């Protein structure tokens, strides 16, 4: 197989160093070996261990605990996505209207979290959220009493939102940067109140960025493992933790595999549903 394409490519495009398809073969071989084959193993084991059949899926969807965790996983992802949209929207908008120096500073704030390793950042959230942590000290100092944050779902959402926020801000900013602000001015000069000009002109134009960021955040949140494992408690277990538990602690590859397949299918269904929204974004970009 690797022998045939270069000859064909070399004949048709003599100026290039080799056939184009041949160049992707090394990466594709690695992809099949380290991603394709392992995922296939997961799918196979979900149907074959301990015996062939769909018993693992029957077990998964027939056990109330699993369904609670599945629902919670989607719920947490939805909350995180919503929190990201709400906090990223004004921030990204601000990035488009301030001067260059201020914009540099705002971009810096988005990128700084990437400078510290992801695990260290989650540990920082442990420091901030724990019962004797920074947030609770501040609340106590302000006379508001203390809130239990660590080992709760709220703590998980707060931590995950911070980790995922840059993935929302950056696509949103790249779309907002391309919006012609004169359109909003035109709406204003035609008598629209500021709120109406925003809702009918600016918001629709910025929606492609919201969709793109939201889908990335939601998909990444579905598979999150480290943050929920460190910030969450027994009552905020997510599907990824449950799957790890099945495989590593209970050595039940069949049930763990079935959970993995559920996560995989959910991810790819979401991606497929989001594809038309992404395409719409490209079209709008072209029209501009």
């Amino acid at each position, binding site marked *: 197989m690797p022998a045939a394409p270069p000859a064909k490519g070399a004949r048709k495009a003599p100026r290039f160093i080799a056939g184009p398809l041949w160049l992707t073969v090394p990466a594709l071989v690695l992809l099949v070996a380290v991603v394709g084959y392992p995922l296939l193993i997961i799918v196979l084991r979900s149907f074959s261990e301990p015996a062939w059949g769909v018993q693992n899926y029957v077990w998964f969807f027939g056990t109330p605990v699993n369904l609670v965790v599945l629902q919670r996983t989607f719920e947490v992802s939805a909350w995180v996505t919503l929190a990201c949209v709400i906090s990223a929207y004004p921030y990204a908008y601000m990035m488009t209207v301030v001067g260059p120096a201020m914009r540099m500073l705002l971009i810096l704030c988005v990128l700084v979290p990437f400078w510290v390793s992801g695990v260290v950042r989650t540990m920082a959230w442990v420091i901030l959220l*724990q019962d004797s942590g920074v947030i609770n000290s501040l609340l106590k100092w302000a006379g508001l009493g203390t809130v239990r944050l660590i080992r709760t779902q709220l703590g998980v959402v707060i931590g995950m939102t911070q980790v995922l926020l840059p993935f929302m801000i950056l696509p949103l900013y790249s779309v907002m940067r391309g919006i012609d602000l004169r359109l909003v001015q035109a709406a204003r000069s035609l008598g629209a109140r500021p709120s109406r000009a925003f809702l009918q002109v600016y918001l629709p134009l910025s929606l492609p960025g919201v969709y793109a960021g939201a889908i990335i955040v939601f998909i990444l949140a579905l598979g999150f493992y480290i943050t929920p494992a460190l910030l969450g408690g027994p009552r905020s277990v997510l599907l990824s933790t449950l799957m790890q538990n099945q495989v590593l602690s209970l050595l039940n590859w069949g049930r763990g595999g079935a959970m993995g397949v559920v996560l995989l299918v959910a*991810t790819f269904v979401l991606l497929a549903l989001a594809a038309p929204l992404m395409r719409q974004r490209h079209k709008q970009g072209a029209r501009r």
Partner: protein
Amino acid sequence: MPMQKHTRLILGLVCLLVAVWLVAPTLVVIPMSFNANKSLAFPPVGFSWQWYENFLTNPDWSSSFFNSLKVATLVAVLATVLGTLAAFGLDRMRSATASGILRMLLITPMVVPGVVLAIGIYAVYLDAHLVGTLGGFVLAHTILAIPFVIIAVSANLEVFDKRLETAAASCGAGRLTAFRTVTLPLILPGILSGLLFAFVTSFDEIIVALFISNPYLKTLPVQIFTSITRDADPTVAAVGTVLFLATSLVIAGGLLLGNRRRKS
């Protein structure tokens, strides 16, 4: 867009809050690393360098640090070579459908849920005796890093003027010479940023590493994770601070170099 004064004020406050939220977890690590007590309670008490000493002298920490460095360097080189080749192939493919499908396939490691992939790789590595081996780490991290290289190099190839290669060829340069003297220097920024991304991806990767580590070979993130789950050890904060400073220096250096190059 003209804004009322109070709208601007509220917007500014919200942005300030979001900025603090983004940055606070990074900065809170720094004071914790000088804690005199072995605790992660805030605020830290006293001042000491002991956690930095521990990072440098405790073999658990130093060996995992060097393991990460070794793995990330190998991954950066391998992923950059494979990713750049693939980006070229995708760019020069005549069928847009084929290149679109292949590109999507090569990017999938970015969206596959981490735990699912990690457990799959763990299953395969158990059979292939690759758990806790350098080769196993490099292979797994390379496939996770390739998408970043492809994205970075493709962005450069998109704006690269292919007629330059034709010009080089018509001046008598062979294909390899043309690539080496014309194409490569022009897409070098993309390749370098791909290299950097690949290094960071591997150095920071935790989920797959958690599964394929064993007591003989573990990377720094795994050591950090086990340390956090086991006890409240401020060494983690010291490591975080060192990494933060190192990254800041690299980025500042890169910015300075870029500025000087632009000026000359």
